[in-house]
C-alpha cells in the first residue's frame, strides 16, 4: 500500500485490483490501474515532478487536470507528456525533463540563485557586446533551450482520422454540458457530447458543492443516466476538443486519433480553470489548486498532504477543507481573503470539524523545505489593503497549501471561433462577450459565468434548447429543467445565488520576489511590471517581451493575473480589457495525429504495367509516374539516344496519357477558347487541330498544348502534364466572370493516349484501322479524326512534337493497355521501339520546341521564345493581351536562342548562366547531345543583341569555367518541317 493512498471509498477512477509498476527518474514505483503518473507518484509521497523552464525550480502538481506546465515529463521518445493526465502502464519508463544532473539535484538550479541578474528582456540587453561576443554565447544559450528531448530514431505509428457530423455538438460533460445534451436530444437533435474525462460529470466527480457529498454523487449519476443511454446522444469520451474552426468545424483528439466534426450548432460548456494566488514561493511542490487536491482525493484516492492550510476567497475552499479533513489530512486553518466571516452550511461544517477560520487574511509567503523541493509552512498575515499585508506575519507549519481564490473561463475554443473575453471589474473575472459569439454558438455553465450548481444546470438546459433550435429542432415548449420532475430535491440542494467566487486581487508582492505569475516561464510580478515600465505596456507586448502566457499552458493560470498586474502597472483601467489572442489548439496536438495516414497520391497510366515489363525507368511528373527510358540504369544515356534514333529512322511509341485533357463544349466554346488562349479559334475548321498557348495577365506563358475542333461547339484540348490543374482552375475562375455558355470538363483520367511516331508509323496504323484513312491525302498534318484503332474507339491527332510523321491516339482509359498491346504487336515486325520522356525531350529539342516550365520561367512572354506566330494579332482580347501589346512596343530584353557547342567543349548543365561580358545575360534551359546531328545542342536565354545566328556567347559552368556557344538557327533538325508532313 502506498504511503499516501486513501481507503477504497476514495479514488473512483482507480482499479485497485490491478497494481502496476513503473519507473520515474530512475526509481521504481507502484501504482494501480487508473492512476496517472502524477497521482501514482503522489501516492508514493513523491511531490517533485519537473524542473521549471528558466530557473530549474522543483515543481509538482498544480491543477491535476493537465492544464499546467508543472508536470511535463518524458516517456521514451515522447517529450512534454502531462504526468497528471497520462495513465501509468506496467513497465513504463518516465524520465524528468530539462534537468542538468537529476531531478532531485539539478545543477540548473544555479540559475534560480542568480535570477536577479536575469531580469525580463535579459537576452535583448546582453551577450552581444563586444562585437562578436554573441557568436560565443549563442550556442551556449541554445543548449539551454527547450524542455523534453526528441529521439531522432523514433518512427511513429500512423493513425486514421475520423469524420463525424452532428446537429448539436456539446463540448464539456459537466453539469451544464449534460443538461444541454439532454435538452437538445429531447428536442430531437442528433447530439455529440465531447468530454475530456474518463467519466462524465465534470466537477461532480470531485468537487464538494455542499456538505453532503452523497447528494453530489447521486446528482452526477442521475444526470449521466439521462444522457448516456439517450438514443439521440453519442458520447465522445476521453476526447479533447482542440480547435473550433470556421463553420463549426471541430477538431478533437480522441485517444489515438484526430476526429473532425461538423456541427450545425455548438454548445460550449467548457467550464473554467481555477486560478492560483500570487505570493512568494507560490510554486513550491505542495502548493496546489483546491480543485487539484479534490481530484487527488476523489478520483485517485491520494491524500494530497499530511497537514494543510487552505487559502480561499470563496465557498469552494471550504469544500476543499472538508474533503481534506475527511480524508485524514490535518487542517488547522482556513485563510479566507474575504474580510467578513461567511456563514453558510459549508463553513459551518468546516468549523464543526474544529478548523480555525481566519477571515481577512492572506498567505503572504510559502516557506520552502530543503532545495525548494517541498513546502514547510506558510506565512500568514492580515490584509491591510489591496495587495498589502498588515506586516505581522505568523508562520504555520504545513506540507500542503490549497488555493481557491477564483476562476477564469475555459473560453479558448470560443475565442477560436471569434469570441472575445473581457475583464469585468465588478465580478473580478474575465467574461465572454456574448455579442462576439460565433455563428450558432451557445455557452453554458461556468464558462458563461454561472458558478452556482443549480443555475449551471438550468443554464445548460437553456443552451441545449437554443442549440437544438439553431439546428432546426424547435421544441414546442420552453425548456424545462432536465430531470426537474425526477429530482426536484437535488436541484434545490444548493444555497442559491452566490457572490462571484473570485478575489479581485490575490496578488501580494514580496521584497524578495519569487511570486510567480507564470509558472511555465518562471515570471514574477516584477517581470511583468518591468515589461510595462520599459514601454511594453500593451498586453500583447507584455506577452512578447516577457514571454508570459507563451508556455505550454498558454496562460491558463497566468493570463488573468497578468492582466491585473500589467494594467495596474500601466495605470490603465482593466475593465473591458481583453487578454491576448487565444489561438488553436486548445491543447497541444501530437504532430502524428494531425498528419494521420500519409496521403501522397501517385498516378499511373493505363499502360503502367507494360512499361515495367519493358524495364522502364520510371520518373515523377507531377503526381504521375512516366517512363524516363526503357533501359538498365548503366545504359541510360546510350538507350535514350537509341530510342530517339528509332523514332527518327523507324517508328517509336510513347505513352502520353499524362497530358492534361479538357472538353470544352457549348455555343460559346470557340469564343471561350479565343479568350483563354493567344491563338485564333473561331475560324478553326472542324477536324483540325491548332496549337494553344496560354498566358497570364502579365503576358507570361503558363501552358501550351493542342486544341482539336471536334465539332462547331466542341473542342478537345490538351495541356502539359503539370499544367492541367492550373489551367482547369483558371478556366473555371475566368468563366465565373465571363458567364459564357460553355461547359468545361477535365477529362484527363478518362483518356489514355500514345504518340506513334516515326516514318513507319503510318504503316502500323494502316493495319489497325478500318475507318480512318491514315494517308497524307486522307489525314493531313494537324488534322483530327475519330474512328477505331484495333477496334477501340479513338480520337486521332496528326501532330508532331518529335518532328516526325506521327499520330497521337486517344482512347478511353480502360482501353489504354489494349491499344498499347495492339500497336506493339503489329509493330513488332517493323521493330517498333517504345521510347520514354528523355528521348522525347531530345527529339523536341532537335526541333527547337520549348517545354513550358523548363524553357520558360514566370516572366517569359511569347515573343521571347519565338512564339509570336501563336498570337492572333487581330483578336480584341485574350488573357495577357494588354501586357503583350505593351511589351511589344518596348523591344525585347532577352530571347531564347538555339546554340551549338564545339565537340570538344565541356558540357554545361541546364540552368548554367549565360553571360555578356561579366553581366548575367540568361541561362541554358535545355541541353543534350544529339546523335542525329552528332553535336551538342541547346536552348538558352541571351540578351536580345546576342541573338545573331553564328555569333557566340559565353556559358559559365558551375565550376566557373567559361564555354563558348554559337547561336544556331532553329530548328536544329529538319528546318523545313518536311518529315512531320510526309
Amino acid at each position: 500500500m502506498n504511503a499516501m493512498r486513501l481507503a477504497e471509498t476514495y479514488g473512483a477512477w482507480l482499479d485497485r485490483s490491478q497494481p502496476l509498476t513503473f519507473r520515474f527518474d530512475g526509481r521504481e514505483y507502484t501504482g494501480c490501474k487508473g492512476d496517472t503518473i502524477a497521482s501514482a507518484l503522489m501516492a508514493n509521497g513523491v511531490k517533485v515532478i519537473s524542473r521549471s523552464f528558466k530557473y530549474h525550480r522543483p515543481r509538482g502538481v498544480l491543477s491535476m487536470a493537465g492544464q499546467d506546465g508543472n508536470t511535463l515529463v518524458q516517456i521514451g521518445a515522447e517529450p512534454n507528456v502531462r504526468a497528471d493526465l497520462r495513465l501509468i502502464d506496467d513497465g513504463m519508463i518516465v524520465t524528468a525533463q530539462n534537468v542538468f544532473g537529476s531531478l532531485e539535484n539539478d545543477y540548473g538550479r544555479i540559475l534560480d540563485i542568480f535570477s536577479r541578474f536575469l531580469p525580463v528582456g535579459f537576452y535583448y540587453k546582453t551577450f552581444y557586446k563586444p562585437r562578436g561576443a554573441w557568436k560565443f554565447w549563442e550556442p551556449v544559450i541554445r543548449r539551454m533551450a527547450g524542455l523534453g528531448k526528441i529521439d531522432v530514431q523514433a518512427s511513429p505509428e500512423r493513425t486514421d482520422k475520423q469524420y463525424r457530423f452532428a446537429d448539436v455538438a456539446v463540448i464539456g460533460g459537466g453539469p451544464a454540458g449534460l443538461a444541454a445534451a439532454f435538452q437538445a436530444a429531447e428536442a430531437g437533435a442528433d447530439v455529440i457530447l465531447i468530454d475530456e474525462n474518463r467519466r462524465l460529470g465534470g466537477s461532480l466527480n470531485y468537487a464538494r458543492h455542499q456538505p453532503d457529498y452523497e447528494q453530489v454523487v447521486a446528482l452526477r449519476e442521475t444526470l449521466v443516466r439521462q444522457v448516456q443511454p439517450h438514443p439521440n446522444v453519442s458520447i465522445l469520451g476521453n476526447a479533447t476538443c482542440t480547435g473550433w474552426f470556421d463553420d463549426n468545424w471541430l477538431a478533437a483528439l480522441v485517444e489515438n486519433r484526430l476526429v473532425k466534426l461538423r456541427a450545425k450548432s455548438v454548445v460550449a460548456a467548457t467550464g473554467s480553470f481555477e486560478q492560483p494566488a500570487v505570493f512568494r514561493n507560490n510554486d513550491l511542490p505542495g502548493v496546489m489548486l483546491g480543485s487539484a487536491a479534490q481530484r487527488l482525493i476523489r478520483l485517485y484516492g491520494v491524500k494530497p498532504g499530511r497537514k494543510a492550510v487552505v487559502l480561499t476567497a470563496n465557498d469552494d475552499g471550504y469544500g476543499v477543507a472538508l474533503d481534506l479533513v475527511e480524508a485524514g489530512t490535518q487542517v488547522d486553518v482556513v485563510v479566507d481573503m474575504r474580510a467578513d466571516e461567511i456563514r453558510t452550511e459549508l463553513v459551518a461544517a468546516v468549523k464543526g470539524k474544529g478548523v480555525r477560520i481566519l477571515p481577512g487574511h492572506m498567505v503572504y509567503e510559502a516557506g520552502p523545505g530543503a532545495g525548494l523541493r517541498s513546502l514547510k509552512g506558510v506565512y500568514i498575515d492580515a490584509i491591510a489593503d489591496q495587495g498589502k499585508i498588515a506586516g505581522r506575519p505568523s508562520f504555520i507549519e504545513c506540507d500542503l497549501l490549497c488555493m481557491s481564490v477564483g476562476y477564469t473561463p475555459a473560453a479558448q475554443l470560443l475565442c477560436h471561433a471569434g469570441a472575445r473575453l473581457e475583464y469585468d471589474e465588478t465580478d473580478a473575472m474575465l467574461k465572454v462577450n456574448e455579442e462576439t459569439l460565433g455563428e450558432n454558438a451557445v455557452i453554458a455553465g461556468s464558462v458563461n459565468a454561472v458558478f452556482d450548481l443549480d443555475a449551471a444546470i438550468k443554464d445548460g438546459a437553456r443552451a441545449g434548447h437554443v442549440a437544438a433550435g439553431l439546428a432546426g429542432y424547435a421544441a414546442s415548449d420552453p425548456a424545462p429543467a432536465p430531470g426537474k420532475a425526477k429530482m426536484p430535491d437535488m436541484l434545490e440542494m444548493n444555497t442559491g445565488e452566490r457572490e462571484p467566487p473570485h478575489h479581485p486581487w490575490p496578488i501580494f508582492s514580496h521584497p524578495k520576489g519569487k511570486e510567480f505569475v507564470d509558472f511555465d516561464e518562471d515570471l514574477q510580478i516584477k517581470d511583468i511590471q518591468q515589461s510595462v515600465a520599459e514601454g511594453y505596456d500593451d498586453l500583447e507586448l507584455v506577452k512578447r517581451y516577457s514571454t508570459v502566457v507563451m508556455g505550454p499552458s498558454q496562460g491558463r493560470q497566468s493570463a488573468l493575473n497578468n492582466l491585473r498586474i500589467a494594467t495596474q502597472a500601466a495605470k490603465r483601467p482593466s475593465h473591458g480589457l481583453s487578454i491576448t489572442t487565444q489561438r488553436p489548439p486548445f491543447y497541444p496536438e501530437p504532430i502524428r495525429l494531425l498528419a494521420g495516414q500519409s496521403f501522397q497520391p501517385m498516378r499511373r497510366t493505363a499502360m503502367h504495367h507494360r512499361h515495367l515489363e519493358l524495364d522502364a525507368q520510371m520518373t515523377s511528373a507531377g503526381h504521375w509516374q512516366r517512363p524516363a527510358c526503357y533501359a538498365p540504369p548503366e545504359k541510360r544515356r546510350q538507350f535514350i539516344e537509341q530510342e530517339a534514333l528509332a523514332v527518327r529512322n523507324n517508328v517509336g511509341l510513347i505513352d502520353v496519357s499524362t497530358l492534361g485533357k479538357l472538353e470544352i463544349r457549348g455555343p460559346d466554346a470557340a469564343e471561350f477558347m479565343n479568350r483563354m488562349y493567344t491563338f485564333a479559334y473561331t475560324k478553326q475548321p472542324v477536324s483540325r487541330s491548332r496549337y494553344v498557348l496560354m498566358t497570364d495577365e502579365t503576358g507570361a506563358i503558363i501552358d501550351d498544348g493542342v486544341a482539336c475542333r471536334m465539332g462547331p461547339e466542341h473542342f478537345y484540348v490538351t495541356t502539359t502534364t503539370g499544367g492541367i490543374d492550373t489551367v482547369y482552375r483558371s478556366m473555371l475562375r475566368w468563366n465565373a466572370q465571363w458567364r459564357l455558355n460553355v461547359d468545361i470538363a477535365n477529362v484527363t483520367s478518362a483518356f489514355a493516349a500514345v504518340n506513334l511516331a516515326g516514318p513507319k508509323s503510318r504503316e502500323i496504323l494502316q493495319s489497325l484501322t478500318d475507318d480512318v484513312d491514315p494517308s497524307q491525302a486522307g489525314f493531313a498534318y494537324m488534322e483530327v479524326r475519330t474512328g477505331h484503332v484495333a477496334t477501340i474507339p479513338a480520337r486521332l491527332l496528326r501532330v508532331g512534337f518529335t518532328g516526325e510523321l506521327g499520330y497521337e491516339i486517344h482512347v478511353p482509359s480502360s482501353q489504354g493497355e489494349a491499344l498499347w498491346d495492339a500497336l506493339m504487336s503489329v509493330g513488332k515486325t517493323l521493330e517498333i521501339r517504345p521510347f520514354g520522356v528523355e528521348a522525347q525531350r531530345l527529339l523536341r529539342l532537335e526541333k527547337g520546341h520549348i517545354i513550358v516550365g523548363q524553357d520558360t520561367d514566370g516572366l517569359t512572354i511569347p515573343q521571347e521564345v519565338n512564339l509570336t506566330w501563336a498570337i492572333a494579332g487581330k483578336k480584341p482580347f485574350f488573357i495577357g493581351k494588354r501586357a503583350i501589346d505593351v511589351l511589344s512596343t518596348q523591344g525585347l530584353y532577352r530571347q531564347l536562342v538555339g546554340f551549338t557547342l564545339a565537340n570538344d567543349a565541356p558540357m554545361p548543365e541546364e540552368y548554367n548562366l549565360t553571360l555578356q561580358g561579366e553581366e548575367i545575360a540568361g541561362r541554358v534551359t535545355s541541353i543534350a547531345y544529339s546523335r542525329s546531328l552528332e553535336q551538342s545542342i541547346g536552348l538558352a536565354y541571351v540578351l536580345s543583341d546576342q541573338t545573331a545566328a553564328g555569333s557566340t556567347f559565353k556559358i559559365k559552368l558551375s565550376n566557373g569555367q567559361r564555354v563558348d556557344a554559337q547561336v544556331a538557327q532553329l530548328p536544329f533538325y529538319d528546318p523545313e518541317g518536311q518529315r512531320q508532313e510526309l
Partner: protein
Amino acid sequence: MLKKSSLPLSLPARHFSGQGRLKSRYDVVIIGGGGHGLATACYLAGDYGVTDVAVLEKGYLAGGNTARNTTIIRSNYLTPEGVAFYEESRKLFAGLSNKLDFNVLYSERGHLTLAHTDAALRTARWRAEVNKHLGVDSELVFPDEIAKLCPQLNLSPDVRYPILGALYHPPGAIARHDAVAWAYARRAAALGVEIHTQTEVTGLKIENGKVTGVKTRRGDIACGKVLQAVAGMSSEVARMAGIKLPVKTIPLQACVSEPVKPFLDPIIVSGSLHVYVSQSARGELVMGAAADPYPLYSTRSTLEFKEELMMHLLELFPFVGGLKILRQWAGMADMTPDFSPVMGLTPVENYYIDAGWGTWGFKATPVCGKRLAELIATGEVPELIKPFELARFHRFQQVGERGAAAVGH
C-alpha cells in the same frame, strides 16, 4: 472592493512610449508601426537627422506581420536585383544588435532549400549560379552532403518525393522578429521620433496631386511627406491615396511546437512539400507552408493547414510525430505578380510606398528602412530599390522572384 494601491516599481528607462499627444504637423508621417516603418523612422532620424517623424500604428507596436512571420533571413534570390537587395539586408541584419544596442538574437543557421524534382533541381542550380556570380554564398548540394549538413533529414530514396539535392545557403539566419522592431523603435524614440500606437489612419488629405495631411481616429495631422508601410493592408491604405496596387492579399499561416531540446540546426525549406521549418532559440519548431489557396482578409487559422503541413513534415522528419503543436496563427500576405516588393515613388507627390511584401517582408526590414529613409530624406530613388518601383507594373517589367519564393505559391 478593495482600494487600489500601486505595487512597488523600480523604473528603468522606457524603450519607447506608445501613447503621447499627437502634434498638429510632422515633417514625415509613417503609416504602420511594424518593422519596416520603425526601421525607416530610425534611419531617417539617425542617418539624416529627420526627427520630426510620427509613426502611426493602428494596433499595438509591431503587431502585424512583424509579429507573425517565421523570421527567416536569406539572400539566395533569383534575380540580380533581388540578390543585391536582400544581400544588403542580410549584412545589415548581421550587425544590427551592435548598431542598435539591442540583441535581436540574430542566428546564422544555414538554409537548405530541398529539391525533390528535376525542375526544382534546375531552379536550385539557377539560384546557386546567380548567387555565386554576385558574390553570395550559395551552392547546389546533393544528398551525401545534405546528410552532413542535416543528418536528421530523411534522405531515403524510397519515399514518395525523395530529396534529390538542395540549394545550400550558409548565411541563412533567423532572428527574434519582435526584437528587431523593438530595437528600431527604441532607437528611433531616443532620437526624437514619436510612435503612436492605437492610432488608426482613416484617410489622407491630397491637394493637387500632393499629400498634405493624414486623418486619424485621434485627429487630423498636417505633414510634409507620408510613407505607407502596412503589409497585409497595403491595398486598403493605398486606396486612400487613390492608388490601385497589383496586389492580392492572401492569408499565410504558421505554427509552433512545444519547446524541445535543440536537434535541428539548419533552416529547412521544401518547395515541393510546402514546408519550411526551423528551431527557434526557445526550442520550438517554427513552421509554415504555402499561402492559402485564395485571397481573403482574415487571420483565422484552419485545421487543414496543420494537417497538410504535418503530413509533409513527417516525410522529412519522421521522428517528430510525438512532438506537439502548441499554437497556430495567420498573417496576411500582399502578393505581387512577380513575387517582388513595391518600393518608392507613387503617382501622389510626397507619398511613398512600401508594399507587396508577400511572404518576404521580415528579411528586408533593415534594407527597406535604410533605403526608404534615403529616398524620403534626399528625394532621390536609391539605385538598389529602383527596380522595385510601382511603375514597373505599368510597363509590365517585372522582377521575377517566383522561383525563389520560400515555398511555391
